């Protein structure tokens, strides 16, 4: 699935090497093992585990086709759809989320994917290259959730009368003769709702329009956008020093969840990022990537390196309130000192990649420090994005 919401089915190119197993086989074997244990030994409330539907053609290694069909959804018993009067037989794949019912007649893994694998087959496997509108919609290439709508809220592309704002980029429009919304994309709207009825295009909000002012039920904080400092920050919040951080920021309470301040000596800002030569962490195991970047480093401004007597290539130790991180120093002019509120403040950067296992790790050539132990697990209260890119550390020669 990509960030345009397309499901594009991919076929395996080669079988898994050696003893490697695919995710679904690993999960299936764990589940079957746990279920057996509950059967033999009992336990607290085993019902959801013992009664879990597991009707795959190969229970130990469910084919992805089985899973995709289940996620789409099917009829559990025969039923007649009230809107279309269509008869759906038990076991048939459902054509869309409008067919989902709350009386047990249907089952579906997730309503947004209902319509991706119908009785016609897997729409995610389609590779139609036609684009009749020339807008780059490609409606028959793969399948976008939900219901193959390529642009969400596309009713907003038209004025109050249902006429497109931009004649050169017409996505959908109101057809008065057919009394329906039609166009180059699937309407993200009630198809027969006439413009004069003034149904708002932002259908996921009850009032149908976008929001600048967010009622508290909508966001954990609000109602307006606000500036808060990261949980570990070297400066006071310039808007309101008495409320430094987001008051509803999500924190945890394990013994690793400690925080440091500049007063305690954690006076250097640390941020984390990735390199183009890497793909998450598993490229630690690929000789090609390891060749391009043989070990992890800490990027340190020339001025800070000079203050601390650190030379490029030397091993350094980065310490936060939670953990230490060892790596070689990359002394660079690309990161500059900052002057904030009259104070000279340094920032250092850690590309993330090393871990416990990998080509260099297994050969004992790198220290096996984990960047995520250094950073704080403090998360945004709405999106749960963690504060891995702004926290405080100490830096010294190792």
């Amino acid at each position, binding site marked *: 699935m990509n960030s345009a919401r397309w499901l594009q089915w991919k076929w395996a190119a080669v079988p898994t090497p050696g003893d490697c197993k695919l995710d679904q086989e690993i999960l299936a074997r764990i589940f079957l093992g746990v279920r057996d244990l509950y059967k033999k030994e009992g336990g607290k409330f085993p019902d959801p585990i013992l009664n879990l539907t597991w009707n795959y053609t190969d229970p130990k290694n469910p084919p992805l086709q089985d899973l995709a069909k289940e996620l789409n959804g099917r009829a559990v018993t025969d039923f007649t759809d009230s809107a279309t009067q269509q008869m759906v037989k038990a076991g048939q794949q459902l054509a869309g989320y409008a067919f989902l019912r709350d009386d047990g007649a249907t089952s579906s893994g997730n309503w947004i994917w209902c319509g991706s694998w119908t009785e016609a087959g897997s729409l995610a496997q389609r590779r139609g290259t036609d684009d009749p509108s020339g807008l780059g919609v490609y409606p028959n290439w793969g399948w976008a959730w939900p219901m193959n709508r390529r642009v969400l809220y596309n009713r907003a592309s038209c004025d109050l009368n249902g006429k497109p704002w931009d004649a050169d980029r017409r996505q959908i429009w109101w057809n008065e003769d057919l009394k329906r919304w039609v166009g180059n994309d699937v309407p993200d709207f009630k198809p027969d709702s006439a413009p004069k009825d003034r149904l708002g295009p932002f259908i996921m909000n009850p009032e149908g329009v976008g929001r600048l002012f967010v009622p508290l039920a909508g966001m954990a904080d609000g109602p307006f956008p606000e500036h808060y400092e990261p949980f570990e920050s070297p400066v006071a919040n310039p808007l309101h020093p008495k409320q430094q951080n987001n008051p509803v920021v999500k924190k945890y309470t394990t013994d690793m969840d400690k925080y440091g301040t500049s007063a305690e000596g954690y006076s250097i800002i640390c941020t984390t990022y990735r390199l*183009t*030569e890497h793909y998450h962490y598993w490229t630690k195991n690929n*000789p*090609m990537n*390891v*060749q*391009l*970047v*043989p*070990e992890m*480093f800490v990027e340190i401004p020339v001025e800070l390196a000079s203050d601390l007597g650190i030379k*490029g*290539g030397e091993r350094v130790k980065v310490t936060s309130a939670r953990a230490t991180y060892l790596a*070689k*120093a*990359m*002394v*660079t*002019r*690309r990161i500059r000192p900052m002057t904030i509120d009259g104070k000279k403040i340094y920032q250092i950067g850690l590309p993330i990649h090393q871990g416990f296992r990998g080509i260099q790790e297994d050969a004992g050539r790198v220290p096996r420090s984990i960047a995520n132990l250094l950073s704080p697990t403090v998360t945004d209260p709405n999106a749960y994005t963690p504060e891995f890119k702004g926290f405080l550390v100490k830096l010294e020669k190792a």
Partner: protein
Amino acid sequence: MANGPLQIKAISGHAGTVPGKNTSRDYDVCKLVDVTTCIGCKACEVACLEWNGYPFRETVFDNTYQTMPDTAWNYYNLIRFNEFTDADGNFSWLMRKDQCMHCADPGCLRACPADGAIVQYTNGIVDFQQDNCIGCQYCVTGCPFNIPKFNTTTKKVYKCTLCSDRVGAGLEPACIKACPTGCLHFGSKDDMKDLAETRAAQLREHTSHKDAGVYDPPGVSGTHVIYVLHDINHPERYGGLPKDPHVPWMVRIWKGPLKWAGNFAMAAGIIGVAAHYLRFGPKEVETEPVEKGGEQ
């Protein structure tokens, strides 16, 4: 290999000459490297290794993003990184893909004494044929870009082939195929030169890079790998690209006039000896009176 369309040699019932007779439609190929849009991702380094079947190697961290200090016999191209600050304090992180430039007047080929060890195709690609290489490394002396690299085990020299095998089959070089930003382009020298000049003009007109230009050094009669640089006046900042590369004078003289001078000296010597013999005859040993009691 000819890369032009079909050419007509004879036309039935046609009055007059065959149009285009004796013209050549073979064109020079060219790789354009737009340094201004390179992100230094090294996909080109990897693609080259994979296409040529070379193994990935162990490297060490050396306070730079550059994979290693120099190209090698089995590592034809390398992105060279340079953090540069100018006199006004403006900072740039320059990165340039370094590999054989496929000169139109290749110093390596001029210097090479081994028949067939280095060939230049009509499309401009300069290729090493290791079967004919004698390992003398004169090509290393002849190259102004320090490209040919000697393998101490096989005793042969190696360098980028501009993927002559792929180009011969109508494909683009492996590095160009792998480049994710499209900063590498491949086509005819004319087209690539046009594209490069357009890009350099765009940089000069619409950005702060008033000295942007195209690197196609005349000292080697132009190259089949050209660069668009932010600053054409300081190519040395891009990992040591020479400002005015040319075949070393020593190589030119030694492989050119000095050969003729040597031939002339040899011929003059033989003619001189013959002429002397004809004029003065052979050296006669004169009979001298033997001195009594003297040396024998």
